[in-house]
């Protein structure tokens, strides 16, 4: 009885993301399920690919078919690839004016607060619904600075086609892993950003990804090039309604941070809990460049997510701040990877992981310091909080150092909410449930303080939602 009450509370709380619109043949084109040569060719034709991209897709499919599944992460046995549709598209096409977006899709993004955020705090927005962007806009003053922020398909055919070809899946080659190969075969949607030399974009750009179709995959590609001395904050948000069938997200993010440039890439991921989130993110940082990741993982049934940074240039830096909250039925395997190649490079990885109600949270990472990375420093700190003994929390970090001229410090801790802290708060009139939520919010504070205010509020709301019904 009590369990039923708890469940219903949790379900109601998820409703702000868990709404869905019927997708009919009249308004949507949907590719048949599965990943065959015929389907890949049809997607390529539908998207009017240049010939090199068509060939690339087929090569990727071949790699996908011949590659083994990873043997180290969460189980994906319930993900039947023959039932996943690679491509679902609104027949309306992409709009540059919010008023032209179809009503049902517009309602979806209105509920998620995207247009409001655009008006109040963003320099540009891209909104992807299923496989394609439905809306893309960038503020005039930002465009006037020479900043390019466009949907990926337009970039592939437009003025920046050569730049796209030069960078596309060069950081994440299709041979990297099975789902990178799948991404190369059926990618669709996503954004291209180019920030010219010395341009500092004062307010963030944002892409929002919504996967509304049941049993579909989303394979968007994000390519960001921040040129020498430039500065950008890019925010990515993801959500989906919950269905009884598995959905798949196998996106790919490639980030190029130029000399003395800075890129902050923030993600609040709240995919529905039927989602397999097998996403790949990677950044290459040139001399003096700075890459900052801020990552909050709350949704998905299963996640494999380890943003990787290659510190190629001397004096380049990386900072990763992440939180993962694994609740009932979730197996979230997240972390970060960094490779130090340049001299005087430095990296800081700081993660928080919370497991509750039978959820499995795994922190997995690797820090590699190659022989040329003299005078490099790496600091890794991972804290895990277990909220009950039905859950699991595992920490699996790897460190590979190939020079003596490096300093590496690693700290990991795992524990529970202190009874004394709960008692202290309760003695001051705070209910136990609120006290525990407050302590968890405090645990997550290093992440939320790295986010813009509106997103920090959203993250704290997500923590409160997850914590409610926990008692």
């Amino acid at each position, binding site marked *: 009885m009590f369990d039923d009450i708890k469940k219903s509370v949790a379900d109601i709380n998820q409703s702000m993301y868990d709404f869905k619109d019927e997708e009919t043949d009249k308004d949507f084109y949907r590719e048949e399920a599965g990943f065959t040569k015929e389907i890949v060719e049809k997607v390529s034709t539908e998207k009017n690919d240049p010939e090199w991209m068509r060939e690339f897709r087929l090569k990727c499919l071949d790699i996908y078919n011949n590659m083994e599944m*990873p*043997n*180290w*992460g*969460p*189980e994906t046995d319930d993900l039947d690839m023959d039932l996943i549709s690679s491509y679902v598209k609104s027949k309306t096409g992409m709009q540059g004016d919010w008023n032209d977006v179809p009503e049902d899709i517009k309602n979806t993004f209105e509920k998620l607060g995207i247009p409001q955020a655009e008006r109040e705090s963003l320099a540009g927005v891209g909104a992807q619904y299923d496989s394609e962007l439905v809306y893309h806009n960038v503020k005039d003053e930002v465009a006037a600075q020479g900043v390019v922020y466009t949907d990926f398909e337009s970039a592939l055919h437009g003025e920046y086609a050569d730049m796209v070809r030069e960078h596309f899946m060069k950081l994440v080659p299709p041979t990297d892993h099975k789902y990178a190969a799948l991404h190369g075969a059926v990618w669709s949607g996503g954004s291209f950003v180019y920030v010219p030399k010395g341009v500092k974009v004062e307010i963030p750009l944002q892409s929002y990804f919504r996967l509304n179709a049941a049993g579909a995959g989303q394979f968007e590609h994000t390519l960001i090039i921040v040129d020498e001395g430039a500065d950008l904050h890019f925010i990515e948000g993801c959500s989906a309604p919950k269905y009884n069938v598995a959905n798949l997200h196998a996106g790919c993010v490639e980030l190029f941070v130029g000399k003395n440039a800075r890129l902050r890439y923030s993600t609040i991921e709240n995919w529905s809990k039927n989602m397999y989130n097998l996403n790949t993110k990677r950044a290459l940082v040139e001399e003096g460049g700075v890459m900052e990741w801020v990552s909050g993982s709350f949704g998905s049934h299963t996640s494999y997510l380890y943003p990787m940074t290659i510190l190629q240039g001397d004096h380049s830096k990386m900072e990763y701040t992440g939180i993962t909250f694994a609740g009932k039925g979730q*197996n979230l*395997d997240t972390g970060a990877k960094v490779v130090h190649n340049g001299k005087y490079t430095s990296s800081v990885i700081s993660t928080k992981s919370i497991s509750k109600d039978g959820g*499995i949270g*795994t922190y*997995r990472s*690797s820090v590699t310091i190659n*022989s040329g990375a*003299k005078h490099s420093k790496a600091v890794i700190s991972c804290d*895990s909080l*277990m*909220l*009950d*003994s039905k*859950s*699991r*929390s*595992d*920490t*699996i*970090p*790897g*460190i*590979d*150092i*190939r*020079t*003596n*001229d*490096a*300093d*590496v*410090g*690693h*700290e*990991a*801790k*795992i*524990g*529970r909410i202190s009874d004394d802290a709960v008692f202290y708060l309760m003695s001051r009139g705070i209910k136990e449930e609120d006290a525990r939520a407050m302590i968890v919010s405090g645990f997550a504070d290093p992440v939320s303080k790295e986010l813009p205010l509106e997103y920090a509020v959203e993250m704290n709301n997500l923590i409160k939602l997850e914590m409610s019904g926990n008692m």
Partner: protein
Amino acid sequence: MNIDMRVNELPARTYRWLQLNGEDVSEKDISFSAFSLEAVKVPEGVSLLENVDADKAESIFAPSHEANLKADEGLVGPNGDTAPNHAGQIVRTGMGTGVDSLLESAGVKATVIKIAEGTVVSEPVMFHDHLSKGKSTISRQVIIVPDNSELTVIMDYDSDADADGIEAVSTKFFVGKDATLHLVKVQMLGQKVRHFDDLGGVVMEKGKFDLVEMEMGASKSYVGAYVSLLGDESQSLNNTGFLGTDEQFYDFNYVAEQRGKKTDSMATFRGVLEERASKNWRGSLDFREGSSGSVGDEQEDTLLLSPDVINRSMPLILCKEENVDGRHGATIGQLSDDMLFYMEARGIDKETAKKIMVRARLDSVARMIPDEDLKNKVALFLDQIL
């Protein structure tokens, strides 16, 4: 015989490209010439049974093995769980099932070291093996320390400089209620010898397992220890020191599996890598469901003294229990400039300062050896290398 085995598997696999999920060992045309260590000293009160069938020697582990299998039914393991690969072992060991198969293939009988219940033997039992050129030894020890008793066992291995064989040692232990086992292992083999050291055991209620280990020689050393803290308030203490020079390769795998309530595991790994030496170190704290109130702490401190060394570490904390406190810390790097400056200000040049620091690091482990002769032997060995 040929040896092909996978050893030192991580309890939970990770990225394949890191190549740290375990190590493959391949040796061709190995002929073992000795099948036990020499018992140098057997104090009064200790019984030594030689040539015992393995099944009989290891039967003491059967009840805990069955209990663990039952407890693990329906267990939600970590992602990439490798436990099923070793479920057949009557007692889990660090190197894993590969060594058990090797012992079977070579037909190695066990030496059982045992004392009576309620006995405290203050003098250590001492074993030794010396390898000469063309010789290889494989041995199997089972140490049984029953309830309310205490025993110290010391094993050391050395060789002639031109020895080129294998020193393979398997040690399994049972520590009863309120009992204590102090186990000391010192490896000073020559630079062409390969060394396998496989260790595993169980510790019952309020029992204590205290390991001091020094790995300083051999061309390749594969060393694994798996300690199962089964009883409530049981303890494991591990102090390991290692020195890698020339092209030495070390592959370590230590696991503290904490099943009982209020168990305590503390491990410190201190070492130095010089020249072209390389080291893989895997250290895992595994808090099982029911290990409420347990604490675990692992600390690694590795000094890197050459640009050509390779140092790889995998410190895992696996947790299926809310009320635990697990920690891991690692400090990996070279001597600090402050330390060198301090030394130089006192007229000590850089090379001498390095030697002092290396020596201090290894001496901090060596001083825990409860035998003066062996301590002196370690000092002499280090003098020759450094």
